[in-house]
């Protein structure tokens, strides 16, 4: 299992890997927003966390369809299905590797982009924390979409359409946690706790559904 984790990590860093694309897309999206919204700083600082979160959501959705597609194309998915180790665990490790390769860089890039959005240190800290907790949930739900769309020729686009409605709670609680941190009256902890609960919930549902979908999609 650890071998799979490090192999996937090595793969995504190597030439063809998706790690860099996710972060670059995240940066371009966030960098473009001020041109649309206009340069006045207090507006930007108010919508900053929301923009960061939406950028992170779209960026992680971007790299998801390659999650199983590459394995299926070169035949290693068949071998993974056959192994004694439960498919659930293999999918979980693959999601963890994918998150480490694409989700984590987003978290590290968010402070830099937070400055773009003229966000206060508190807001940047809160955004980083919520992104750290929230992005795994997106990867786990995305795994279900990727597994469902693995046998489709143009599955990539379908993944984001299928997954977006399911990722809305993560976005809602992520951003509301950050706003709770900034404006004093609202407490910071409850939304954060609910966000963690959602991530843990999807950490179970995601691999289970993805494994079932993979087993049925292998023709």
């Amino acid at each position, binding site marked *: 299992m650890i071998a799979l984790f490090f192999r996937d990590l090595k793969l995504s860093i190597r030439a063809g890997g998706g790690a860099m694309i996710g972060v670059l897309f995240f940066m371009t999206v966030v960098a473009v927003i001020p041109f649309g919204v206009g340069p006045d700083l207090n507006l930007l600082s108010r919508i900053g966390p929301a923009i960061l979160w939406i950028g992170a959501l779209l960026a992680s959705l971007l790299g998801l369809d390659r999650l199983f597609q590459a394995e299926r194309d070169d035949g290693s998915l068949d071998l993974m299905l056959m192994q004694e180790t439960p498919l659930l665990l293999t999918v979980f490790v693959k999601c963890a590797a994918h998150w480490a390769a694409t989700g984590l860089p987003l978290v590290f890039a968010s402070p830099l982009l937070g400055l773009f959005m003229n966000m206060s240190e508190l807001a940047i800290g809160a955004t980083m924390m919520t992104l750290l907790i929230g992005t795994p949930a997106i990867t786990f739900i995305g795994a279900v979409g990727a597994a*469902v*769309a693995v046998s489709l020729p143009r599955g990539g686009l379908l993944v984001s*359409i299928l997954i977006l*409605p*399911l990722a*809305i709670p993560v976005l809602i609680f992520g951003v*509301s946690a950050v706003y709770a941190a900034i404006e004093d009256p609202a407490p910071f902890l409850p939304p954060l706790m609910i966000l963690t609960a959602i991530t843990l919930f999807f950490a179970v*549902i995601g691999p289970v559904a993805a494994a*079932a979908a993979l087993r*049925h999609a292998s023709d």
Partner: protein
Amino acid sequence: MSENSLAIRKFSDLANPTRFLALADRLLPWLSGLTALSFVVGLWLSFATEGDYQQGETVRIMYVHVPAAWLSMMCYSVMALAALGTLVWRHPLADVSARAAAPIGACFTFLALVTGSLWGKPMWGTWWVWDARLTSVFVLFLMYLGLMALNRAIDDPARSSKVSAILVLVGFVNIPIIKFSVEWWNTLHQPASVMRLDGPTIDPEFLWPLIVMAIAFTLLFFTLHIAAMRNEILRRRVTALRRLAARAAGREARAQ
């Protein structure tokens, strides 16, 4: 029907598409007649009662909006049941019913959204208001579209049935979460100044039209669902025959 055919026989004889078609042909005229009747009564009732003292005429929109919203939720539960049918009991018709129900569910959800916003305009002054219920119905609408896109993307029904069933179940599990998060989100951003959507407390005078309209909508749903399932079976029959023709042509080509 050859007995040792490989399709798995499940609890009712409905598992056999041909018997289902026969049943549908017998049932549909009755069902559509009943639907038409209940619609006439419903419409008459909803227009016979005078308007609400506060909302005036617009309360009549409720007679369409609320049943449509119920229907959109009921349709998704029917699809979730069908998803269980495909995965757990491997019922051959379950996927047909899920695939037939998706467009109908999407139309009812669309109807609920449109009538909701039409109701919102006179009362809250805006076409669209991010009220918790409207928003979660909108998310449900997105899920319907996603499922329809998936069903359309996978052309081979045998393989796609299980995969879309899994997605329906994952979506079904998520509905409470989405509902909860939208409620939370709504109260967070908007102090509860928004008037409750379900309007005045329902006194019996409004209850009757509402119930009759709800029954009418439900009957309409089942009529359309059975008819759509019949079409889906015919569509599969056509694809099966086309494959047979291609296969037969292939064999003759090999035979010459």
